[in-house]
């Protein structure tokens, strides 16, 4: 089937989409957007986190056809000042080890700071509870979120 949607402010069309296919698979395999990572395929790890309209979701748990007519924003599309600031904070804080979880964490952090400019540590832990880092570099990730929040408030 054909899916028509807006991805990172661009009108896109994906053809030959298998009706049981995930939005993650469509983004990666048909639209060439490989920033969202494919790891657990069951919503456990958060490495495929994206915005569907304005909501943070695991793209592996959205059927591609459910995105028909909707807006999607992936890590590639987070090029506004806030998105760049989150990415820079991850680099500067040393929050990137193997890097596989990083795109999902960047999107989840962006979503957190969008609704809460000054999150407490428990707020940050709660907001990132659905994003796993198997290098277990969580302390630096928390540093990165605090740094991004601080810069955004400045």
């Amino acid at each position, binding site marked *: *089937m054909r899916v028509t949607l807006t991805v990172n402010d661009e009108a896109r069309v994906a053809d030959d989409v*298998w*009706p*049981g296919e*995930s939005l993650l698979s469509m983004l990666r395999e048909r639209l060439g957007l490989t920033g969202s990572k494919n790891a657990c*395929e*069951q*919503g*456990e790890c*958060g490495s495929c*986190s994206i915005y569907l309209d304005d*909501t*943070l*979701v*695991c793209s*592996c*748990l*959205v*059927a591609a*056809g*459910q995105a*028909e007519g909707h807006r999607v924003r992936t890590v590639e599309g987070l090029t506004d000042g806030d998105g760049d600031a989150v990415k820079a904070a991850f680099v500067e804080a040393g929050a990137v080890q193997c890097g596989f979880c990083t795109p999902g964490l960047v999107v*989840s952090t962006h*979503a957190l700071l969008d609704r809460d400019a000054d999150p407490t540590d428990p707020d940050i832990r*709660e*907001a990132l*509870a*659905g*994003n796993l880092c198997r290098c277990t570099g969580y302390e630096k990730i928390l540093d990165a979120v605090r740094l991004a929040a601080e810069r955004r408030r400045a």
Partner: protein
Amino acid sequence: MTTTALDTPVFLRPTTLAEALAAKAAHPDAAPITGGTDIMVELNFDVRRPAVLLDLSEVAELRTWERDGDRVRVGAAVTYTRIVHELADELPGLALAARTVGSPQIRNRGTVGGNLGAASPAGDCHPPLLATGADVEVAGVRGTRLVPVAEFFTGVKRTALAADELVTAVLVPRKRGPQQFAKIGTRNAMVIAVCSFALALDTSARTVGTGIGSAGPTPLRAPQAQELAAAELPWESRDDIDVRLATRFGELVAAAARPIDDVRGTAAYRRLALAVLARRCLRWAWQEYRCA
């Protein structure tokens, strides 16, 4: 849309409830999908290939909630995130349970209707719905009916839904007293309950509702524990709760469970943990009543 290769599902996308019900009647084997948090896992791992996927996420009627007398009618496609943000005052038990589901990403997509439709014995919404005495609204082209939630679950992942019916809403009594929910898992996020317990006090009727999760083939109530607490709680004096009453309540809840040993825990552990959760929930709720 009528013919399809054996392994290629048809994707149906109704935009009204009437269209959705007509589609379910025409395709009784259709798998409804809204948040996708259960069914997409099955599709991703190829453990299930439904012939028809019925996407309910564009049906506006399912995405609303409204007050209906002394109850709140929560549409089947209202997400956990919205329950937490919009219904915590009126439906505190359900909101507490919704708060423990998955992660922000999962709560942004997952729905009460999906939880009911999947009918996992471990579904987090089920204990508070049992404790408050909610009704499940199910509809089909033949009409709409209400099923008391205790009668909705007929077995492991089996429900009272007919093949041509969809869950359209759940009618939950508005708060009539303190409510609590507690759940055991290996971490705070992203866990399927090892066991869970919900409690709802009705301080006007002086009754106590219970719901046990993940400790039986279906979510269960603990009728003897309910009767004991209703009869022996010091409703009038609001005295501190007797420790023997709280302990006995916990024991009766544990006795009402029908747990098994599985990958998440043993039956013995579940009974032990349920006795503790039930005792704690009763004390927390009673403390709230005393301080009200």
